[in-house]
């Protein structure tokens, strides 16, 4: 006889829609609540991002909500105790805000740069950036600099959109997909949805990755490349394409700068810049008219190849000619890069030709009429269905910027951009190349007390004049972004902040605010030493720390909170208002511009406040102009009020949906007082679906660009011409050569770096750290990968997720391990130039032979994250970060230089080289170990030995 099946008690339940926060993918979720308890979190089928599916982290959100690591009240380091001891006293919010306001008021009215405000994987950079700008400090950035600025910058300086959230493969039409160095990405669910679509249609999926797990597991072909060699591989593919004359001639002529003319006067000023007319337009040689003509105009017939003599007598060559000269060189022949890349020459050549075949023989044509920006009508869109995606396997190397540009070079040659089946832009991208936004660099404004910056702290320099340096060439930012050391550091260098602030180099900070970044642990390089720096006292000011005041805003008891002088506890994602804005990193999909919100679904049970609420409060108290009425009173009641009523420019605000007084306008329109309700009614997201004629070729799509200009995505309607050859880079190179009319570096190191690395065409060089360490001594590359079911450090507190992985291992190639006498579960030492760690090994087939790797951020400090001290994350798990230095190995006669990409300042996490050996018998457990974090006041959580979570009020088994 069948037992009775108990069904849900729907009457006791409530269903609400909001946005997931377990990672930056920001999927739509449908949350079932029972008695203010979370019963079920599932994907929202209507949401453009995840279309109903949900990843492990998303579903495990329940266990985040009921984590024992949740902070419960504001805390102040107990007077008389040392920083890092972790002894705290509870204080009230009023006290906390008073202390902070006083301190910030003092800084703002004297030297605003003494405030550093850095945020981790913040999903509201538009607000935090605005806040910093209004405060008047240049010292703000989010995690982009240590994350993937190489991808963002390479894209934005080449194609107008980029990997890393500003574009996505067109999964509906792609027939060939080449994935470079991706384990999980921000676009977690869309990639998984897409890979299945591609494979279902019989498309081919090729992965370039030293490791074969996750997405790479299901690839049709795996290219186990040696880390850091992708640029070489990409340029070799370019070699093959050129050699076989497999490129999209029309695309190059119409949409790229391949035909622009470059001045060839080596050793003279102006060398390598574009030949321009009197209006500063780049020129091409028109083969029809036999004349130099404006290369941006329509109705031209440019020569793609050729060497000409300009009217002023200078020799000029087309970009394409320069490219052919460079990449056709035997240096890039597959057989000549095979050994360095660790790949068979045959594979390199074949993959390039396969892509060419699909691009040119299996073209997708859609009968969609569209008009190009020059006014010409087209009766169809032509898609070359070769899609690519690349992420941190490329970006986290110090040659990542150029490697990524080399990948974009393949896409441009194939004409495979923003069209059916290839890599498409996500609104508000594409943008002009680079986007027209410069970082604040006016020293007078930066130094002015009580004055907002006139421009955001971050932007996209195009020439040495845009650097954020003083008259002596010294950095004005604490992270040295936009200095000669890292000139186009478009996302800042968060990984340098603690080191520089401790060294008082370029100057000392007074207060450092860190919002949701675990900079004392997994998001820092050189973890153990960084912890010491946070504890370092200033010999000149007895009793004071090198970084005098440290404020940490976190929702959980992380390793970072342990160093705070003031801890401001945040709410969780189910407890607060949030907005995921188009002004920020968007959640748009290629077919739709989209944004989303969160709103409180469960009642607060602790004395915590949303940080955005606190920011609006502080901004009002400090009387930031944008937050204050002319009469000096506060302009916005609270955060929701701010979101509705703040306008960046008339009609453009944080949320794009249901604008206008009556909520009928999209993308642009006056504030709508009922906007939040509208979002809530519409399942917490807004999507503007692009009509067919605005979906493709948007860099040159008139109808699209008109809308984009109207709503502020771009400044005006003008073609966005893709840049094989980057003139901004050449300007910096000229400065390094001493051939630039304008600022030039006076330090030899900087000059050499500019000359060497600011190549206007994609180039490859050995990653910087590897140029300086002995490869014989350190024979292995060492990497990390993201596990699909863990988000950095913050998921070990999740009692469901940690069962899947509570300890990480160091993985290595089986054969290589056998040669070294290393077996599964042996404990080994791993040493780099920066230090050593002990960890446990597992062997596998799917790892390139010279590479070892582990899962990122599984290792934890004892006592953190609400776990017991014997948690295996702490006793057996480990962090690779101890081995990675934030500075390059020292070189005689040179100041210490950041371990970052020399162009963008991207942290070079994956340049690490190590040696390994078996630990002595009895040497077990991970090393180093740290003092355990102490329990915080207000942590009254029960930590039972058996947990039986059940959202139902009755009927338990």
């Amino acid at each position, binding site marked *: 006889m069948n037992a009775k099946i108990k069904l849900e008690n729907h009457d006791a339940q409530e269903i609400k829609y909001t946005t997931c926060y377990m990672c930056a993918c920001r999927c739509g979720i449908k949350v079932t609540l029972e008695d203010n308890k979370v019963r079920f979190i599932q994907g929202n089928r209507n949401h453009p991002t995840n279309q109903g599916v949900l990843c492990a982290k998303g579903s495990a959100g329940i266990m985040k909500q009921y984590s024992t690591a949740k902070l419960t009240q504001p805390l102040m380091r107990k007077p008389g105790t040392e920083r890092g001891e972790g002894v705290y006293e509870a204080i009230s919010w009023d006290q906390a805000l008073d202390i902070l306001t006083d301190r910030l008021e003092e800084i703002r009215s004297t030297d605003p740069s003494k405030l550093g405000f850095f945020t981790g994987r913040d999903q509201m950079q538009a607000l935090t950036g605005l806040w910093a700008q209004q405060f008047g400090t240049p010292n703000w950035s989010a995690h982009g600099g240590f994350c993937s600025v190489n991808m963002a910058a390479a894209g934005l300086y080449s194609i107008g959109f980029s990997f890393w959230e500003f574009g996505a493969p067109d999964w509906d039409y792609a027939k060939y997909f080449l994935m470079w160095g991706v384990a999980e990405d921000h676009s977690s669910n869309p990639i998984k949805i897409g890979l299945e679509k591609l494979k279902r249609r019989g498309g081919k999926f090729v992965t370039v990755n030293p490791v074969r*797990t996750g997405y790479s597991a299901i690839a049709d072909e795996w290219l186990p490349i040696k880390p850091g060699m992708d640029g070489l591989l990409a340029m070799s593919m370019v070699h093959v394409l050129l050699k076989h004359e497999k490129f999209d001639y029309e695309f190059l002529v119409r949409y790229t700068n391949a035909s622009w003319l470059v001045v060839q006067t080596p050793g003279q000023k102006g060398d390598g810049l574009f030949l321009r007319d009197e209006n500063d337009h780049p020129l091409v040689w028109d083969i029809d008219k036999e004349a130099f003509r404006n290369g941006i105009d329509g109705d031209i017939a440019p020569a793609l190849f050729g060497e000409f003599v300009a009217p002023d007598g200078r020799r000029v060559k087309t970009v394409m000619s320069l490219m052919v000269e460079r990449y056709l060189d035997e240096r890039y022949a597959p057989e000549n890069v095979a050994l360095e890349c660790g790949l068979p020459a045959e594979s390199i050549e074949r993959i390039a030709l396969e892509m060419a075949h699909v691009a040119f023989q299996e073209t997708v044509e859609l009968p969609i009429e569209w008009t190009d920006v020059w006014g010409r009508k087209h009766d169809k869109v032509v898609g070359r269905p070769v899609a690519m995606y690349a992420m941190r396997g490329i970006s986290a190397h110090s040659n990542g910027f150029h490697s990524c540009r080399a990948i974009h070079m393949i896409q441009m040659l194939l004409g495979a951009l923003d069209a059916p089946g290839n890599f498409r832009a996500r609104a508000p991208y594409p943008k002009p190349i680079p986007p027209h936004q410069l970082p604040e660099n006016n020293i007078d404004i930066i130094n002015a007390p009580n004055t907002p910056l006139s421009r955001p702290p971050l932007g996209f320099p195009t020439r040495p004049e845009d650097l954020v340096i003083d008259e002596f060439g010294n950095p004005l930012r604490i992270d040295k972004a936009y200095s000669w050391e890292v000139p186009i550091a478009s996302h800042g260098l968060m990984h340098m902040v603690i080191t520089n602030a401790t060294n008082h180099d370029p100057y000392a900070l007074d207060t450092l605010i860190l919002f949701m970044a675990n900079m004392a642990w997994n998001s820092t390089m050189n973890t153990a030493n960084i912890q010491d720096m946070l504890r370092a006292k200033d010999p000149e000011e007895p009793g004071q720390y090198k970084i005098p005041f440290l404020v940490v805003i976190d929702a959980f008891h992380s390793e970072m909170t342990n160093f705070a002088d003031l801890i401001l506890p945040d709410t969780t994602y189910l407890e607060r208002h949030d907005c995921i804005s188009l002004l920020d990193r968007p959640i748009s999909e290629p077919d739709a511009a989209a944004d989303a919100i969160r709103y409180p679904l469960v009642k607060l049970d602790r004395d915590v406040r949303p940080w955005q609420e606190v920011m609006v409060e502080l901004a009002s108290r400090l009387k930031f102009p944008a937050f204050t009425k002319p009469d000096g009173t506060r302009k916005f009641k609270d955060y929701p009020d701010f979101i509705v009523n703040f306008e960046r420019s008339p009609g453009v605000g944080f949320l794009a949906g249901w604008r206008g007084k009556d909520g009928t306008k999209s993308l642009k329109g006056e504030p709508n007082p009922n906007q939040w309700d509208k979002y809530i009614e519409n399942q917490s997201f807004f999507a503007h679906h692009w009509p067919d004629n605005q979906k493709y070729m948007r860099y040159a799509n008139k109808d699209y660009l008109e809308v984009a200009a109207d709503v502020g995505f771009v400044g005006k309607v003008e073609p966005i011409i893709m840049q094989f050859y980057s003139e901004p880079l050449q300007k910096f190179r000229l400065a390094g050569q001493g051939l630039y009319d304008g600022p030039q570096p006076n330090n030899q190191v900087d000059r050499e770096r500019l000359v060497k690395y600011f190549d206007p065409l994609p180039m490859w060089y050995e990653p910087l750290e590897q140029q300086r360490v002995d490869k014989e001594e350190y024979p292995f590359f060492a990497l990390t990968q993201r596990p699909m079911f863990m988000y950095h450090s913050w998921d070990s507190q999740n009692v469901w997720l940690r*069962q*899947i*992985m*509570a*300890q990480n291992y160091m993985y290595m190639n089986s054969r290589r391990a056998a040669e070294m006498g290393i077996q599964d579960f042996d404990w080994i030492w791993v040493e780099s130039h920066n230090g050593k760690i002990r960890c446990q090994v*597992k062997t*596998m*087939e*799917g790892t390139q032979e010279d590479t070892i790797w582990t899962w990122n951020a599984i290792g934890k400090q004892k006592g953190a994250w609400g776990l017991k001290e014997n948690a*295996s994350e702490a006793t057996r798990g480990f962090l690779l970060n101890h081995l990675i230095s934030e500075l390059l190995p020292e070189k005689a006669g040179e100041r210490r230089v950041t371990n970052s990409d020399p162009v963008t300042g991207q942290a070079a996490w994956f340049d690490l080289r190590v040696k390994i050996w078996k630990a002595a018998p009895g040497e077990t457990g991970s090393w180093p170990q740290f003092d355990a974090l102490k329990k915080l006041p207000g942590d009254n959580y029960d930590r039972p030995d058996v947990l039986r979570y059940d959202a139902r009020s009755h009927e338990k088994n």
Partner: protein
Amino acid sequence: MHPAFSVIFFTVASGAGFGLFSLLFIADTFKLGGGFTPAQLVIGGIVALGLIGFGLLSSTFHLANPKNAWRAFSRFRTSWLSREGVFAVVFMPLALVYLACIGFDAPLWLRETFGLLSAVLAWITVFSTGMIYACLKTIRQWNTPLVPANYLALGYASGSLLLLLGAVMAGLDTLPYIAMAALIVSIAAVLKAIYYFWIRSPGLTPTINTATGLTRAKVKLLDTGHTHGTFLTQEFGFQIARKKAGLLKIVVFGLGFVLPGLMLVWVFNERDGQAAAIIAAFAGIAGAAVERWLFFAEARHVVNLYHGAQRC
């Protein structure tokens, strides 16, 4: 398989109990060695029932939810575990009636009928115990008729040694008892030897390839998807080293068969070897216990294929 103490105790004790009881019936029927007195028979019977009872009791310690143990009789038609329970439970009253017949000097036909019935049920029960394991297709080392044969042989061997001890203590002519024990212990030894020989051959078992369906190349486990143990690894993950198993097999033979055999010779020579009979009985039972432990320890459940074993 994880060797659970309660299950080992249960099968060894109840096997010996059922063996003893059946053989007691034979001894009674044929008045072997002159025959036990009714009082001696009843005491012997109670000892046997005690072994069975304690065994059954200990088996419930193995249950995570013993309050539902009574339901275990409900699936007699399909489940050997249920059958074992039912047979054991039916056996009990029959055995008690038999003992009562002896105690109260009931008519012989009645006594013989109940004796025979309980002896048969005892046999069936031990057979069922063996079948609990033998019917599992998931464990090759168990999925063989050798298993019930072994269970029966070892149960009766233990029983025969206990019976011999009884005969020695009762001062009977021990020769028939020695002969019976020698015969059964020898059969048990031969069966066990065959079994040990049989499980050493690889056999046509599932492999990691058939388990995963990935049959075209070598398959290796990369990750189980849970860092620490699960119910599956606790229950099925137990593994014994080949060497250790070999040693234990020597112990099984030494304790379970050789030592009792030597003791039988001793008793035979002495005609009054109480000490030897005690040693024989205890050694036999201890040997059976080691055998049972090894029976579990050597069993490799196919689920281990999913945890990386190449074959089971």
